[in-house]
């Protein structure tokens, strides 16, 4: 591989890590509260409100049903509004975050829903309010699942970020298409695949380690 290509590879890795990390973080910040809202407003939840629950569910399903490549293009005006441009790595973070947030909200919802109702009742019996129940019971008890779900989301985002090349965001997927496929640079293709495998394995390994440390359910 020529030094030029190697430099491109390094830059692409950085772009992929940036896109995945930033949109992952954003999806955590917005998706977790959304997941909490879904569980809390559902029937028998700590803030039961069925119409809020249905409306939230419908919006989340709406975003999740649009294929990412279409979302990428459809959100261009929004992206331009937020980032100032619709091209480049930072511009790709907007649609990636918007796609990953409802995805992660659903994953977090599943973990939060699994928290034993008896624990919530115990906290209520102790005089806990909604906020303390969320802080002391729901989130800590669901934390292993919340972290495991975040790992899954990050890995999914690495895949999705490959498509972001379509709006000039760069990244490993873009590199593989333009150099590995269209210019027959097999070594680039192989290098990209290896880097992706390492990235995915690394994220999964770190996530699993963290889950094991957090999980005291035995």
């Amino acid at each position, binding site marked *: 591989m020529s030094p030029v290509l190697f430099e491109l590879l390094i830059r692409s890795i950085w772009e992929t890590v940036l896109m995945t990390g930033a949109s992952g973080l954003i999806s955590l910040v917005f998706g977790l509260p959304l997941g909490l809202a879904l569980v809390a407003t559902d029937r028998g939840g700590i803030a039961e409100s069925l119409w809020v629950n249905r409306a939230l569910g419908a919006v989340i399903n709406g975003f999740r049903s649009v294929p990412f490549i279409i979302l990428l293009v459809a959100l261009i005006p929004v992206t331009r509004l937020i980032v100032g441009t619709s091209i480049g790595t930072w511009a790709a973070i907007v649609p990636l975050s918007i796609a990953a947030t409802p995805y992660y909200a659903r994953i977090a919802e599943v973990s939060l829903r699994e928290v034993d109702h008896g624990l919530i009742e115990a906290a209520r*019996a102790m005089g*806990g309010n909604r906020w303390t129940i969320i802080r002391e019971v729901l989130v800590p008890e669901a934390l292993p699942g919340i972290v495991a779900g975040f790992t899954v989301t990050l890995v999914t985002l690495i895949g999705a970020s490959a498509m972001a090349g379509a709006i000039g965001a760069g990244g490993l997927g873009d590199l593989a298409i333009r150099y590995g496929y269209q210019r027959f640079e097999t070594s680039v293709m192989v290098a990209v695949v290896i880097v992706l495998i390492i990235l995915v394995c690394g994220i999964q390994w770190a996530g699993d380690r963290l889950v094991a440390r957090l999980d005291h359910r035995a």
Partner: protein
Amino acid sequence: MNQHVTAEVADRAYSTASEDVVRLTDLKRRFGATPALDGVSLTVRKGEILGIIGRSGAGKSTLIRCLNGLERPDSGEVFIEGREISRLGERELQPLRRRIGMIFQHFNLLSAKTVEDNVALPLKLEGRPKAERLARAAELLDLVGLSEKAKAYPASLSGGQKQRVGIARALAARPALLLSDEATSALDPETTRSILALLKDINRRLGLTILLITHEMEVIRSIADRVAVIDAGCIVEQGPVWSVFADPRSEITKSLLGGIRPQLPAEIASRLVPGAGGDAILRIDVAGEAARAPLLSDLADALPGPFRLVHGGIDHVQQQPVGTLFLAVAGNDENHLSQVIAFLKARQARVEVLGHVAGSV
């Protein structure tokens, strides 16, 4: 340990104005068409252990959950320390719930928190500083005998240890009342005994009022002062444990007592026929003074004629002897039989002719 126990007794002395910690009047609650509570009135006196017993589905859980507002009655009133709480909003209930500790059948400990953090949680919800929380947790873990497990996670504890942590947690905020929701139902008999002994000990040393629900008469027998029997959402019978044991009035109470009171052996029961002929089988219930008297030897002296003790036993409930004996009175002599019955009744025993058995028993 003694110091903090004394200190607690001291702050408790000023904690309640009313002698009744709980007073329920005509509590009703329906789930769909079925009434879970159908007009329950009940009081729990300060310092006592009141046991509520009933089969599953009798309304016990709904009842106990009305006391801390986890469940709302459709009608009726719930007074806790003289204050009506059934119409209070969630926000107003929160400080009140801190006056009421609760323990659960499945313990409901937080798996993500250590034992000491679990115990300290009620204080954290109250916003107390960390040092105070941990000091109180250490004190309580000492009380329940689990000091060495302070840093462990609940998953590593046995069922009995988990319930001890549950008890320590329920006491953390110095409650005026402890609610126990089938707290020993998931435990083996030996662990059950040790948990009940702990509850009794806490009741005596801290003067803590306890209301427990259970479906096991053995639990009532071991620690309750008074018992209320609930069936189909109604209190069908209540009173001091020994007197309900000695003289159960309702069928449900008799059936719940069945497991721990002597019963006529099935082999004899199957051969019983009504009317005369063969040995008469008598069931004799005695309690208190009647059970202390030499009843059977007096009977033998007064009325010669063979009788045999078929089955029976005398138990001690709240230091009172409570017994049930099954006698087979031989012969076909109706006159003799009525004399025996009259003699026993004169000695404060309750007598019932169950029937007759042909041939030898």
